[in-house]
């Protein structure tokens, strides 16, 4: 498998507090990876470093063979998309305007969107299932719908790698499942690679590989059925759990 992203000895501090302490991790083409960890374990920070939003205090990230520090931002934006945990919209743009903004890295400074860009944006909205919202304002739809708008915007970017920060936060069970299935379909059909932080153990079965963070370090990584056991989860989340496996699925319950 070809490697798409590699983090090498990443360290990161916020105001003197070290959030990430030497992380080495690789991601491959056509692979979906889930990142798990307790609150404050450094998941969001790691994701932001992986897509070049934050620069690591030490260490480097390589997209294919190229150091992110030396990659032109717009060029990277054509290949890597980011979906934040809390989609934010400062002004009441319409849904279709926001999705169309995903095309920005593909359009020159003084160019306008072409017919093709509109088609791609419309397709992205249909794929995510929000085509009926296209003329609504992003400030007037629900939190879950906003998350889907953000996802559609990232799809319109036509990336090779999509990095999502807890895509399921505001989604109901049905949309959660559909989003995960959609990411897998895109992986199969378009060769998309996915890295997603998640708290939702229920959805871990959709990932090819899991990376578990604890206190700013990689605690364990591997296939879901190997990594998700009582011992590992107890350490990572600091809570006693019972893990049951049935037909390739993992069920986790708290002891108390």
């Amino acid at each position, binding site marked *: 498998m070809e490697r798409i992203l590699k983090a090498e000895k990443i360290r990161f501090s916020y105001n003197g507090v070290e959030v990430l302490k030497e992380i080495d991790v690789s991601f491959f083409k056509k692979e979906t990876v889930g990142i798990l960890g307790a609150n404050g374990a450094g998941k969001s920070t790691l994701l932001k470093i992986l897509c070049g939003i934050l620069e690591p205090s030490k260490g480097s990230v390589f997209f294919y063979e190229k150091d992110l520090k030396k990659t032109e931002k717009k060029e990277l*934006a054509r290949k890597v998309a980011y979906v934040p945990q809390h*989609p934010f919209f400062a002004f009441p*743009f319409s849904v279709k305007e926001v999705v169309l*903004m995903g095309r920005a890295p593909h359009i020159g400074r003084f160019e*306008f969107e072409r017919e093709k860009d509109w088609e791609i944006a419309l397709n992205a909205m249909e794929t995510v299932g929000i085509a009926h919202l296209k003329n609504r304002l992003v400030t007037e739809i629900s939190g879950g719908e906003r998350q889907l708008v953000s996802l559609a915007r990232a799809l319109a970017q036509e990336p090779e790698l999509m990095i999502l920060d807890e895509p399921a936060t505001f989604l109901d069970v049905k949309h959660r499942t559909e989003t995960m299935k959609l990411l897998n379909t895109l992986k199969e059909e378009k060769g998309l690679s996915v890295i997603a932080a998640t708290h939702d153990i229920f959805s871990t079965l959709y990932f090819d590989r899991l990376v578990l963070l604890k206190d700013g370090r990689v605690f364990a990584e591997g296939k879901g059925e190997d990594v998700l056991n009582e011992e590992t989860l107890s350490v990572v989340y600091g809570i006693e759990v019972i893990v049951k496996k049935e037909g390739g699925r993992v069920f986790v319950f708290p002891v108390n």
Partner: protein
Amino acid sequence: MNVKRKLIVSLTLLFILWILTVWISLFSGTYEFNPLEAFSGNDEMLKTILLKIRVPRVLMASIAGGVFAISGAALQALFRNPLASPLTLGISGGASLGALIAIRLRLNQGLLGFSSTSICAFLLSILTIFFVYSVSRIRGVVATGRLLLAGVVANFLFSALILFIQFFSDFIQSLQTIRWIMGSLDIVGMDPVWKTCVLIAPPCIVLVSITKDMNLLALGDDVAHSLGVRVKTVEKTIYFATSFAVSSVISVTGPIGFVGLIVPHILRVIVGMDNRILLPCSFLLGASFLTMADTLARTLFSPVEIPVGIFTALIGGVFFLWLLFRTKKEIIL
């Protein structure tokens, strides 16, 4: 309708509106005459009134209104807040203090066709721009929250200093200063118009060239970054471009409020949120708005002229309240 067509249609309509406003404005005044007849006729006095007073004044109103409005729109994109305006960031306070110093020291030495009051106002507002910017930086990066706060505090500080100096000034100087702070488009001859034009053109062009990035800023810093925007560079550019343009205008006209707040607000209702349309349209509507306001200010109680700054704040405020009463929607800040 696609963005390009929407932009062309709205710019055309607003341009026609501006031409109409200018035409009406040239007709109106204490002396009423037909500008075309005055221009082609033999009456030297009418010709002088038209070319030395009315035309420069109308053009200055257009430039000032345009700059205030486009800067307001850009600053609102920068702060992700529709209540930001060109007078928020301390520039007007700095300029007013500069003007007061020039008046108090009885400086009469003009330079390059600008009066000493204008020059002092300009210098002090430029100083303010850098002062506010340096206060708001954290480890070399500008923080927008601090920028807003530093600007507002700078304005208060300057107001206090102005009052302090006023307290020790004589009556005529006080009156001159207050008159300056009220804002006025009272200029003679085309010189100030051309020179202001030269100063404001580059920053305005810069602002229009980054409107696409301004749209992406509305999605938050992280997403804007991930879409290829150099967020901090764009923020710095917006700050310095608007500040420089606004300083150039204010040092000639004095602070004229509300145009920068209300024009982008009205336009968002009509043309939508897209800054690629909003910014250029703001310039044109701002130009028409201030030209119209100035025409009313100098004709309504003719031969007495009300300072245009008072007038824009009055009609702007009333209009804003009406808009609030009419739309019963929550306003998202």
